[in-house]
């Protein structure tokens, strides 16, 4: 509606954002009304011009810290969720989720911790082939989606986890996966090829791994950003 204002109108007062407290109320109302997490951009689009969404969000998060409802951050998005310790009260709302098979759970964990990861890499880690149904199910749940193709021969597709996954498991970002730092430090998230594969396997192979690892991390970060496009 502000767009209709003639440009020669005395600008300042018209484009002044609502006061801080009002902005907080507005963001609160918008997020309260939505079941899905909303990105800061989505929130901003619905607010008057000049609102500082991030500031309002942080204030709200602090306000709701010890309440029955909490403001959760999900990647670039935000959502109100009931406090986890009160879940037992909500048995009426509880949704009976399909029990995931062990294969599905392991595959999901591998994708989350190793993303972006190809199907061959998942199979290498689990030592068995990944059945079509497993990945389909994870994608159907919207916990997993296809990421960028790997720039290796055959250009295989990679799999990454989604904001829905983060929301479901109460994670702000894939970096908050439980124990991910320890696993990385222990080298257990490396893409270490079996000996005899690849050409330069000698004692140098570790040195070679260095920059590759960095690249993988970059890949991760980039793909994580992708998730919220």
């Amino acid at each position, binding site marked *: 509606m502000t767009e209709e204002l003639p440009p020669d109108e005395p600008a300042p007062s018209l484009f002044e954002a609502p006061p801080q407290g009002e902005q907080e109320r507005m963001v609160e109302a918008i997020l309260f009304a939505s079941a899905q997490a909303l990105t800061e951009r989505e929130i901003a689009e619905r607010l008057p011009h000049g609102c500082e969404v991030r500031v309002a969000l942080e204030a709200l998060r602090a306000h709701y810290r010890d309440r029955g409802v909490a403001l959760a951050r999900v990647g670039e998005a935000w959502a109100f969720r009931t406090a986890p310790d009160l*879940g037992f009260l909500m048995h009426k709302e509880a949704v009976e989720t399909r029990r995931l098979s062990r294969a599905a759970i*392991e595959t999901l964990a591998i994708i989350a911790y190793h993303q972006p990861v190809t199907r061959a890499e998942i199979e290498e880690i689990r030592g068995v082939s990944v059945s079509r149904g497993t990945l389909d199910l994870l994608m159907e749940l919207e916990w997993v989606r296809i990421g960028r193709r790997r720039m290796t021969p055959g250009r295989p597709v990679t799999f990454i986890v989604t904001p829905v996954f983060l929301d479901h498991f109460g994670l702000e970002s894939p970096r908050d996966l439980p124990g991910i730092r320890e696993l990385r430090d222990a080298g257990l998230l490396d893409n270490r090829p079996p000996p005899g594969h690849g050409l330069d396997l000698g004692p140098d192979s570790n040195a070679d791994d260095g920059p590759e690892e960095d690249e993988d991390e970059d890949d991760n970060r980039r793909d994580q950003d992708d998730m919220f496009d």
Partner: protein
Amino acid sequence: MPEDFPDISAGGGGAEAASVAERMAAEALLVDVDGFEGPLDLLLTLARTQKVDLRRVSILGLAEQYLGFVAEAKRLRIELAADYLVMAAWLAFLKSRLLLPPDPEAEGPSGEELAAHLAYQLERLEAMRRAAARLMGRDQLGRDRFVRGMAQSITMKRRVIYDASLIDLLQAYARVKTRDEYEPLHVKRGVVYTMEQALERLRGLIPQAVNWGVLEAFLPEGWRLDPEKRRTATAATFAAMLELVKDGRAEIRQDDVFAPIMVRAVRRVEHD
């Protein structure tokens, strides 16, 4: 993983003593062979029976445990999937590599490298198992945390703003007014059927009019129904007809006042 070496020899030495217990364990495992997610999963389960940190697991001992499992399956005539047998063959190869003194001429990775990678794979699989369990143990949406029950969707409202300036308004009015001014000129011309047109038409028609016929029959198509057009066409045709009579090409008569006007061609042959 150099710390594997003492274990490998120790595992090799204790193989005899452990064999009975191992075979019993293998039998127990066989019952559950469908429960394994492939050979690596089985190896991990076997490794756990060594009751040591996975980093210290004896790969040689593990290879023997696995081979014992496969031998037991054969004895019990239980069919194992092909990938279990492939793994058995590979572990037999690994075992020979580990037991024989390293051959500097040999191609490919050494037994230690292969063993180290297998140990890494087991550790990684174990780590992923634990991570998966921790992940599933988190507060999950729809189980421990809940979304807004009365979610409100945003209603989309389309609003159309009609724009018009004063100039548009004035031009519109000007357009309406000017339309009035020129319309009469434009209009009247179209509905007149001229005598020239009628004469042209009758010159073609009249020679064939051997018998008396009504004047109306000579009106052109499209000018007969609309009263206004009929009027102008009738006038023009009548005038043209009089011209033809004057020329001696047609005869014309009217039997009574307001009776139909009759016309026919003059037969020139008789005159000539």
